[in-house]
């Protein structure tokens, strides 16, 4: 491959609307998990269980959608919505375990997170077999179709890129903006951040640090669950074992790169989404598939190497708070 050819390939990729469409699509689970991580870490709780929460959410989404359609009488169009609600709720319940371990029991937050990841892997595998009788993956479930926004979807180039996506992709963008606003422009956001910067100071003016931290953890549970739903109900239409494949960790890096802000997390996720979207272009790019699949992880390393030091985490992050 000479330089001319390579340049041509790059231009080809960069000018195709499908590239950006894929970027937006693929970045969605990362963005949601990353924003969840942002809220959680801003209150001072490290959450490396994002991977496990996403996995649990993906599983729950598939299961709820399946049963909604098969047993609870929902139509194929409505079932995925049931799945979505199931995913978000399960994610929140699962994250409560993280909260319990990290906030109440004051255990090492990284270890608790790792425990939950391993647990999630085992539990989803176990339950897949127990519920569906098949190991490794669930059967096909009802999933979301892209919703084209009338009018806007017909704008040349931008239309298909921005306005023809499955619902959770839209949600991600809205959540990013809403999250930014909530965190930096409301009293609640001020208190959440106070709990992560100087919990004792917050405590002495009457802000409940425990409550703020639980809110942070639950938000990460909800958004992580939603991210999982995106995987099993939008990317594909089923749950398969370990389908998150490290995304939860990439989301952590996206949060760091985004300087612990919701908008920043969303934007960084776009970058990672771009890297991962290249795997759809293997026919154009002349590299072995394994190397393309490696790209997001390599990119994460590069990003981390550069971002650290310039991005400052909340002061009290990772330190359990006790009143005495």
């Amino acid at each position: 491959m000479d330089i001319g050819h390579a340049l041509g390939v790059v231009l080809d990729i960069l000018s195709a609307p499908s590239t950006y469409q894929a970027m937006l699509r693929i970045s969605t689970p990362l963005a949601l998990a990353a924003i969840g991580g942002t809220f959680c870490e801003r209150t001072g709780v490290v959450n490396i269980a994002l991977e496990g929460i996403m996995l649990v959410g993906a599983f729950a989404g598939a299961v709820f959608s399946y049963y909604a359609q098969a047993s609870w009488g929902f139509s194929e169009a409505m079932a995925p919505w049931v799945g979505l609600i199931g995913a978000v709720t399960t994610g929140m319940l699962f994250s409560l375990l993280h909260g319990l371990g990290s906030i109440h029991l004051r255990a090492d937050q990284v270890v608790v997170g790792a425990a939950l990841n391993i647990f999630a892997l085992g539990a989803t595998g176990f339950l897949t077999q127990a519920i569906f009788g098949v190991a490794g993956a669930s059967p096909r479930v009802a999933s979301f179709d892209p919703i084209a926004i009338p009018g806007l979807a017909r704008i040349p180039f931008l239309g298909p890129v921005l306005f023809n996506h499955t619902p959770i992709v839209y949600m991600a963008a809205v959540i990013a903006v809403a999250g930014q606003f909530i965190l930096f422009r409301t009293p609640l956001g001020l208190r959440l951040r106070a709990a992560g910067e100087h919990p004792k100071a917050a405590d002495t003016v009457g802000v409940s640090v425990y409550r703020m931290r639980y809110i942070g953890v639950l938000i990460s549970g909800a958004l992580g669950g939603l991210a999982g739903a995106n995987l099993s109900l939008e990317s594909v239409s089923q749950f398969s074992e370990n389908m998150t494949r490290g995304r939860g960790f990439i989301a952590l890096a996206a949060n760091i790169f985004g300087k612990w802000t919701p908008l920043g997390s969303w934007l960084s996720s776009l970058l990672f989404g771009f890297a991962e979207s290249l795997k759809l272009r293997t026919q154009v790019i002349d590299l072995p598939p394994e190397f393309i699949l490696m790209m997001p992880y390599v990119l994460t390393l590069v990003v981390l190497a550069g971002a650290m030091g310039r991005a400052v985490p909340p002061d009290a992050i990772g330190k359990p708070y006790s009143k005495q």
Partner: protein
Amino acid sequence: MPGAAGGARRRRIFVAAKRVGLSLMQPVASVIIATVIGGVVMAAFGFDPFSGYAGLFRYAFLSEFNFTVTVLNSIPLIFTGLAVAFAFRCGLFNIGAEGQLMVGSLFAGWLGTLISLPMVITVPLLLIVGAVTGALWALLPGILKATTGAHEVITTMMMSWIGLYLTSYLVKNVLMDPRTTLPASNLISEQARLLTLNRVLPFLFRSPTRLHLGVVLAVLAAVFIWYLLTRTSLGFEVRAVGSNPFAAEAGGVSVRRNVIVALLISGALAGLGGTVEVMGLHYRVYDHFSAGYGFTGITVALLAKNHPLGVIPAALLFGALTNGGAGMQLKAGIPIDIVDVLSGVIIFLVAAEELFNALKRRQEKRSLLSRSMGGAEIDGRSEA
């Protein structure tokens, strides 16, 4: 004071024994609770926990064959357990032992298919190659952590995924014999294989067994790491950094150097674990051969409270679980993933130990203050 040193030594042993006993209580309790929870989960889905656990026990221990498999399973777990434990003692979470293991075993195994020098040379050489490659795979995360503070959880995990794809590519495209369909390398040479124990210790093992020298190597590694950690200045510095890097710095310890060294040693141990598997059991490099040894190593390390010698029984437990778990699946239809469920619960409970630890420390302080010579604080009515 005559006898003071002897009396002090006796008291020291007593204190140490009490400490060991107390600290054993917690992991044991965690395992028991996890077992109960696992049983409840099984029952909830219509499986019979009693026959399940009975099957597990039978498949893990009963019969020489089963016991052999259990021990064989534990060997890589001892190495990865040591890897994670050592890093933890330096305050680092090496979650990427899986990748270090794969890379180490790949390069060692590859070399093993190529050379056939006398065993005395080949075996140590391959072990070194495996350890060094594993260490190199942890080098980048170590440097990133030391210089930029990048969290090793993310970096080692990324290296793990990269390692997975890299080894997969190499096995399928370089090592594999193109004429076959098996995604694995050729067999390693005779001289590269670890001897089975009936050849090394014929007086102990009369009949042929698959148990190989790796067992001995694993135990030796555990002892060596224990000695390194508790009896050398390197180990002291590593532990100081793990406990309080600020005070360590003020005591002339280079935090950066120790972080890198700790991850290098950790990676080397993981690499050795994979290498020993290839050289002692499989005799070739498979694509995706690791059954999650790197992650189970985390559970093993935490269950052993990051104590190098404690890693041995913890690894045995999980070797038994994995083996027995397979049996459970076969006989009672219980998905083997239940082992991961148990792992997660165990780690969670062990992590919650901080609560017990903190309580224990306060208890220690309270009882000491009441006995100590200057501690008049209990009774404020002391003489001024």
